[in-house]
């Protein structure tokens, strides 16, 4: 890991609201996060935690009825949220590329893969066709696909794992500095998942791309991430190095999540579910959002009446839990 930590992208107090017919839903609540140049950052959270919405906000692509109602997103010091359409076009894919969830379905079913590479290149500036295609071939080989076969195929002729790797090659076409991947392996079989993660790790090491993985599965981050951010019910509840998160979690939710993950090497009797379920975002508990499921709260170790603010309690290790000393291993 590099020691010259320099944020390349920063979310500052970002809040995203969705206006529903009868009420307001705050999907992301005052979240700040620095993405450091050259790192692999995992953002872990369950459905409804706000991780995908946060990523959309970072690219300024939050869709209606959602709205970024507060905060800033800085890329190399410039606020992405004030970019013009033209600036955004230059920024997206060239500076920051995103692979959305269920990306296999984001390929156009009626165009051959070749056309989709050419379209992408021409939408972000004019480059000679043969140059684009030779870059495409190089990238497809990189993700261990047969370039000529894939370029000549329609998406339906490729398996799920091949489509996912094609999307990854496509996302690297314009040499982005940051790649954001939303649940990149969720629909894939376990062997394909391992393969894709290895390829991503290699792309990171070879090309020096900064990567942000959004996932519900904390397990897949253990091998690849440098740092992990944990989100719960729209808030960031913990941030730290991968070892901090796995070996010394400072938030009861993080600890619960890791204890709830079945593994092949543990003692199955030690696994514990987190009781209850995530809160309804339109009807949140007044104080700590995790309190109704929290062991420390249940045992009377915490009043649970405060919302919690992310604070740095050790160097580089942040938690929103005031009772972090009681979390234990």
């Amino acid at each position, binding site marked *: 890991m590099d020691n010259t930590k320099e944020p390349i992208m920063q979310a500052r107090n970002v809040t995203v609201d969705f206006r529903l017919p009868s009420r307001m839903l705050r999907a992301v609540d005052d979240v700040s996060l620095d993405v450091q140049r050259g790192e692999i950052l995992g953002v872990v959270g*369950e459905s409804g935690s706000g991780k995908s919405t946060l990523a959309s906000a970072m690219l300024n692509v939050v869709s209606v009825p959602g709205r970024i109602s507060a905060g800033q997103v800085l890329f190399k010091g410039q606020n992405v949220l004030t970019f013009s359409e033209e600036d955004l076009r230059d920024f997206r894919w060239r500076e920051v590329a995103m692979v959305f969830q269920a990306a296999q379905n984001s390929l156009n079913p009626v165009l051959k893969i070749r056309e989709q590479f050419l379209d992408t290149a021409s939408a972000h500036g004019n480059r000679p066709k043969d140059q684009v295609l030779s870059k495409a071939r190089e990238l497809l080989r990189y993700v261990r696909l047969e370039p000529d076969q894939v370029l000549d195929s329609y998406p339906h002729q490729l398996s799920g*794992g091949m489509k996912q790797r094609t999307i990854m090659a496509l996302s690297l076409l314009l040499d982005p500095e940051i790649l954001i991947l939303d649940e990149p392996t969720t629909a894939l079989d*376990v062997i394909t998942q*391992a*393969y894709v993660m*290895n390829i991503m790790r290699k792309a990171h090491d070879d090309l020096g791309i900064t990567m942000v993985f959004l996932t519900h599965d904390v397990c897949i981050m*253990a*091998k690849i991430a440098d740092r992990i951010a944990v989100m719960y019910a729209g808030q960031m509840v913990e941030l730290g190095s991968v070892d901090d998160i796995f070996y010394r979690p400072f938030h009861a939710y993080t600890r619960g999540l890791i204890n709830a993950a*079945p593994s092949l*090497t543990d003692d199955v009797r030690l696994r514990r579910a987190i009781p209850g379920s995530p809160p309804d975002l339109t009807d949140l508990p007044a104080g700590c959002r995790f309190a109704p499921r929290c062991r420390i709260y249940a045992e009377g170790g915490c009043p649970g009446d405060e919302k919690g603010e992310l604070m740095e309690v050790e160097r580089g290790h942040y938690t929103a839990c005031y009772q972090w000393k009681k979390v234990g291993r």
Partner: protein
Amino acid sequence: MPPLLELDHLEMVFRGGGGLLRRGARRVGAVAGVSLQLEQGEILAVVGESGCGKTTVGKMITGLYKPTGGRILYKGADIHTLKGEAFATYRKGVQMVHQDSYAALNPARTIFQSLGDPILHYRLARNPGQARERLAELLTLVGLAPPQQFLDKYPHQLSGGQRQRLLLARALSLHPDLIVADEPVSMVDVSLRISLLDLMGEMNRRFNIAFIYITHDLATARYIASHGRIAVMYPGKVVETGNLSQVMATPRHPYLQALLAAVPIPDPRVARHMRELPLKSLEMPDPANPPPGCRFHPRCPFAETVCEHDEPPLRASDGHLVACHLAERIPRWEWAPQS
């Protein structure tokens, strides 16, 4: 006494892709000779990747597909020869829990309407009032309390975890001896998975219900079937089967070893030292045109000439069954190479 369930050289060939203009329909052998047994109250995990035929096996057991070859014996009787009362007993006795709880419940009917019908049909309740009482008990049993809060709701008003519990309640409502659960937790949030698996384990112990847990996820399989058995499938075939803890301790088939190497481990120090995938290629074989000999040989790092020609039978090795010619000669599995 005969076993609760016996699969005897089960085969399923799908035909399709022919059409008007193309001659010769494509034949896809989804299941090619699977034999397995299940005793009363046993838990069997059927593990494999998409396309291996695990779901097809589940659908044949529950009677949704009729096999094109082989037999399924339920308490000793071939389910496709059963008639009248005996068929109804099988239908009640074998229930299914699906992966997608949203698709498995009619969105236009309330929970009471969806779950009440089966018990009224099988006269487990005489009237809607009794059905309501019975369902209230069942919902409490699967942890949906207070039940009155759920009975008149529509599926979209419940969370994924709650709907999955309902599916389990629906399966339990007919007093089955076997529940086939096809990826029941793969669409549920991680923090809730264990509680669902625990619930199934509890139903297994309390009511002696046998479970067939179909999954691509070895970690959850190991969790639920720690005292049960496992069958690992590779397109259409069982390649390794036996006592789960024993198979996990000494996995013999190179495919199972590859699967094990691919499972993410929630421990950074161990995970960083995991070996590279021992596979020659990523792609699964085309089930319409499986490779000759061992179906795994094109991807197998150890394959020899014999593997290209002769199909390996399931045979005993290390106290369980393995379909690999080289089972005794390939390196023993270790979790992580010594660092």
